[in-house]
């Protein structure tokens, strides 16, 4: 009830478990970071020398500049389209009740509930069949499948929080539907849209399966390049793969930290009511 952090045995246990998890997590991350800067690292605590050459190698060997540009393009397009398509849909789902609403909601939820690989293979086949796959279009289309539902899922509670009377008030002031969207709803939804965008961005950048199945020569994203570097034929220095993984994580981390600045993580699914004391 109070703000005292009571040191009961259970809380010791829980905080202990959290600390254990975090320490090991730090170990997992640090071992990759250290390796990516190490010259040679055999049976010792730390590498025998330090270097940044692996980053240079990774950058040139995997054509990371191009990959980064593609990743950014895909991410921006996916985020943009899924927000444009998802927000109006979540508006209707949040505000209106109509016959078949539950069915529509379920339809929007299914792509999140299904593992990407279950629909990824047929999706890739279909996209190839119509000539979309193998380049940026295909990657973007495939990534929209989980992204649009994700925007809808995160935005619906956000929209529900906005008093519908506000829209009616705007209407009574003479605003048309698009004006209501542009002048009233959009500014109010900015935090939600930002949060959803960044989460979609993180998911898209990290979405391996669908991108993997639909990417072409000029449309590989970072994860796919990363996965190839690990599993495709050929010999590569472990360290440069690690360097690439570190680059990937660093960019994602920046995004996430920005996201958390804009949105309280607890606002994702429910309206927050903080304990007053």
């Amino acid at each position, binding site marked *: 009830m109070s703000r005292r952090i009571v040191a009961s045995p259970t809380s010791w246990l829980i905080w202990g478990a959290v600390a254990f998890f975090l320490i090991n997590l730090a170990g997992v991350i640090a071992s990759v970071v250290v390796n990516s800067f190490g*010259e*040679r690292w*055999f*049976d010792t605590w730390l590498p025998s020398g330090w270097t940044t050459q692996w980053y240079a190698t990774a950058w040139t060997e995997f*054509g990371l500049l191009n990959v980064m540009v593609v990743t950014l393009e895909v991410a921006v397009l996916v985020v943009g389209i899924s927000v444009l398509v998802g927000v109006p849909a979540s508006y209707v789902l949040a505000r209106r009740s109509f016959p078949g609403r539950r069915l529509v909601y379920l339809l929007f939820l299914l792509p999140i509930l299904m593992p990407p690989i279950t629909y990824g293979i047929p999706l*890739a*086949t279909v996209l*190839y*069949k*119509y*000539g979309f*796959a*193998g*380049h940026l279009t295909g990657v973007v289309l495939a990534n929209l499948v989980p992204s649009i539902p994700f925007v809808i899922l995160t935005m619906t509670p956000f929209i529900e929080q906005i008093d519908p009377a506000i829209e009616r008030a705007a209407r009574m002031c003479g605003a048309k539907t698009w004006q209501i969207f542009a002048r009233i709803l959009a500014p109010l939804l900015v935090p939600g849209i930002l949060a959803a965008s960044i989460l979609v961005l993180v998911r898209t950048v990290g979405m391996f399966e669908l991108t*993997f199945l639909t990417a*072409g*020569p*000029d449309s*590989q994203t970072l994860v796919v390049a990363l996965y*190839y570097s*690990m*599993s*495709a*034929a*050929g*010999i*590569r*220095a*472990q*360290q440069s793969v690690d360097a690439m993984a570190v680059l990937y994580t660093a960019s994602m981390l920046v995004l996430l930290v920005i996201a958390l600045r804009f949105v309280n993580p607890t606002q994702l699914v429910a309206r927050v009511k903080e304990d007053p004391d």
Partner: protein
Amino acid sequence: SPNSGGGATDGPVPEKPDRAVTLNVLDVAGNLQLTQGMIDDFAARNKDQIEKVTYSKATAPELVGKVKAQQAADRVDIDLVLTGVDGLAAGIDQGLWNPLLPTHAARLPGMANYLPGAAAMQKLAGDHGVTVTYYPSGPLIEYLPAKVPEPPKTAEALLAYAKANPGAVQYARPSNSGPGRTFLMGLPYLLGDSDPKDPVNGWSKTWAYLAELNKYVTLYPSSTSETMKNLANGSAKIIATTTGWDINPRVLGTVPKEAAVGTLDGFHWVTDAHYAVIPRGVPVAKQAAILNLLKDMLSPEQQAKAYDKGYFYPGPAIKDVTLSMAPAESQQALAEFGRPEYEQLIADNPVEVPLDAKSLVAAFDRWDREIGGAKVKK
């Protein structure tokens, strides 16, 4: 047709494209490490034929689905595929490749100079692929002399060593690893199996041996790098390797320089090669440029680049390409990390082509079920 670059996709292939084309190269075998220099060099010298080259990499399993789907959509945007035996064979099976031979044999004079092993590998390709790089591969074993002062010399000794040191012998899951599969394909020769080319009916000794060995193997990593790392950090003592995987990781620093390789008595080299293939549906103008490129790649000066840093040691597919012709970097790396004894070993031991793709998949499947998957039941 709506394919990239435009132009007819069948009919006679001209000498040269009328104007410079863009080539999209897909590598599913890690071949660009060896040949990108050759391609770039050719492109730089032939601006009138090649405007730009894009490279991309993929895994072999994906290749077929991708090309097939593109061909179905009549929109092929992969012009040249560099692949190993697996991708090549799968593509032949599905009829994905343009037959290059014998139609264009005259335009590829370098093919007449193949090393014997490379020539054997070229037979596997039938009329569809052109061998660009070749190496005898393995199976070899690698160890740190400090930890294994007396390495086993025979397959039986290896088994005995594994028995005496559980967990010390390691090879990666064959379907994920070149050395792993070379070891698998080399065993029938070592053990004297009835039909080394028939994993289903002719490998009884091999399967028995692997099953026995399995008792003392604690894990099968999913990549060769992992076995290399384990060798380096001491958790594995003897691992399966090939010439390339012996030299290159030591150059890169994944494995200590002092690691040594050994052979098992009576082993046959199970060779490996990379091929260039052109998918159906590529415009003839591009085909022309590719043929000219391949012709150039099969010249001794270019082939010398295949020495690389020992990645596919030795690498060249044609005769009379010596290390001294290779770029300075290669020479230097191989001077430091190379093994003079390879020359002798290559000369003294018989050379065998690997399994064809179907048999190989069958072997993998059986290995997965009976060897790798056996752990589940234990």
